[in-house]
């Protein structure tokens, strides 16, 4: 036995295996390093921004005019614009996504499922820059023309156009996540409901959906996080005007649009204008991180319930 262990091959094995092991550990550290890199780099530039602009005037200021002679960096119009567009998107995507998921999980025949599912995956795979082009050049003029028919003035870049198209972007995300959780509800619960004489829709509304609720809520939270962080659709369709308004027909701007606008063209890493992009990035990162953590928590608790 000891002769076997001493052969060349086994020596190699004892030498290479720790090396390979170290490499594997190193690879998984890269993911952690990326997060650290994001936090440190964005936080460092933000810190430099907050040395020039006070945190309170950033968080609670209602005027965003970074290019004015006396620049003002009020975050409030950006976040209301972002939330307005997210709200419009969710009003579109929540019913469409959830009802699609119910259809796929409960009503669709296997044949219908195999056509409908790739359709949603196709929509999910369309790059957002394409949807942005569609929103800016087809949906926005259409809404404007429709508004003019009824004597309503709609601006060329309206929150409604960006929100509607963003809603369609989110539908596949909500439907695929909800489809998974609806399928995870045990069949015995449905059978119990049918045995009591309930119709299919009654079973879905009174038994399946309440049981799947945590998963559906987390799907909605992830969708909101996705909408808040979405860039291309709003850059192309929502515009740059930092209006503090809840009117969906007016032009608004969002956090991501302004990050992009602050970094296009000349970048001076000592001016608060360029640095403000990183402060906005940090805020965006924190908001989406909180939403993601909440969503993952909800999902994890839900999984334990039916495991």
């Amino acid at each position: 036995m000891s002769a076997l262990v001493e052969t060349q091959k086994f020596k190699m094995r004892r030498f290479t295996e720790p090396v390979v092991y170290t490499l594997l550990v190193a690879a998984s550290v890269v993911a952690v390093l990326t997060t650290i890199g994001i936090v440190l780099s964005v936080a460092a530039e933000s810190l430099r921004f907050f040395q020039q602009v006070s945190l309170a005037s950033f968080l609670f200021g209602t005027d965003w005019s970074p290019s004015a002679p006396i620049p003002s960096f009020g975050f409030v119009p950006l976040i209301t614009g972002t939330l307005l567009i997210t709200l419009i998107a969710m009003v579109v995507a929540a019913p469409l996504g959830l009802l699609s998921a119910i259809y796929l999980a409960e009503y669709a025949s296997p044949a219908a499922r195999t056509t409908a599912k790739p359709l949603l995956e196709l929509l999910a795979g369309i790059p957002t820059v394409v949807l942005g082009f569609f929103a800016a050049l087809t949906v926005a003029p259409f809404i404007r023309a429709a508004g003019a028919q009824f004597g309503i003035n709609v601006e060329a870049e309206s929150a409604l156009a960006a929100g509607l198209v963003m809603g369609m972007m989110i539908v596949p995300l909500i439907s695929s996540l909800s489809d998974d959780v609806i399928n995870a509800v045990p069949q015995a619960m449905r059978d119990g409901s049918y045995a009591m004489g309930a119709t299919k829709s009654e079973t879905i509304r009174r038994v399946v959906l309440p049981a799947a609720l945590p998963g559906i809520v987390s799907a909605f939270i992830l969708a909101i996080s996705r909408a808040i962080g979405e860039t291309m659709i709003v850059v192309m369709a929502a515009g740059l005007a930092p209006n503090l308004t809840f009117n969906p027909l007016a032009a608004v701007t969002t956090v991501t649009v302004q990050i992009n606008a602050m970094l296009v063209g000349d970048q001076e890493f000592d001016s608060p204008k360029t640095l403000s992009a990183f402060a906005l990035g940090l805020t965006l990162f924190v908001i989406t991180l909180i939403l993601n953590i909440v969503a993952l928590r909800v999902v994890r608790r839900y999984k334990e319930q039916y495991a």
Partner: protein
Amino acid sequence: MPELARSPRTIRRYRNETIFRWLCVCAIGITAIFLVFLLANLTIKAIPALTQKTITLAIKIDPEKVDAANVAAGDFPAFLKDSISAEFPETTDKSEIKKLAKLISSSVVEDLQRKVTAQPSLIGQTISVNAPLTADADSFLKGIQATVSPTGDNSEFEEAALQTLQKQGKIQSPFAWSLLTNGDSRAPEKAGLLGAFMGSLYIILITLVLALPLGVSAALYLEEFARKNRFTDLVEVNINNLAAVPSIIFGLLGLAVFLNIFGLPRSSPLVGGLVLALLVLPTIIIASRAALRSVPPSIKEAALGVGASHQQAIFHHVLPLAMPGILTGTILGVARALGESAPLLMIGMVAFIADVPTKITDAATALPVQVYLWSSLPEAAFRSRTSVAILALLIMLLCFNALAIWLRKRFERRW
């Protein structure tokens, strides 16, 4: 029983059932209609840009106006004007000839100069050229623009001349190959997608080369080697969260770290590939772990039973069996990277770049960013070219997805 079926309450319940079912079908239907409308709309918008109106001109390279020893100093625009006045013998006014020459794309003169420089023996000969018209003349002939002049100035003379040429059958409209063979340009009829395509190709290759080995190694470690402790918990939570971080944040990371700290070249596919590799890494890790988990433990146990070490069992037996699943996940991740534009905007890949990149450190742009760039240009001709760029992008994405589906079908194993 019949009484029950006819009771108002039962009828109402059945009606509600039908309504609910219809709502569900409508939801899927609306999504499908949106998708079909989107694709049809883009295709219809793209059609005008797929062909390019050209005119066949006989251009005489006049030896009096160009010297074989100094080709660059030759008066090439004059050759074009001469051949146009030959087409319109009745037009003698110099300013009118000039107006007509402006209907021909400036690429004709550039091509002519290049040809003669490469082959000075052409001097003195007459060559036949398929000269592309400018985008404005092109749009007028296709009926998109009512006048040749986009600003609405008087251009009746040019319009009459173009219509005469069309009646004489001298105008052809072949497929616009320049869209595929040219780099970007300010003139719509000369603008092409080759530069953006090469940029995207470099970015994808870098993303693949970096993200695949890193992702698979991390997945192997987490799935097969790691003990459950604080560190692996941290990595796991971290990967799940990273997968949901907005892509624009990765662009900020690239700007602050790769450009400002490491000083890598701005707008280069190298930096773009690095950023997108980090962006798709979580996706690849999650997909690879799922693929590794689906290999039954009995395979590994059998290898261990005949004396293989833990690593040999995994690298020789588990990993090869998980490979199709890993590759499918990777291809889908790379397809996502191909369609991503927000992080590339942050690292300066939005500049106007006419040259086709030849190295990964050259300034370049990518296909989705090209879509963004063209869509913001005022010329109407660029709008239909944007649609062509979108269709090219969608076709590439479709190819990636088809490849992933084929791999899954071909190598899928049920244990």
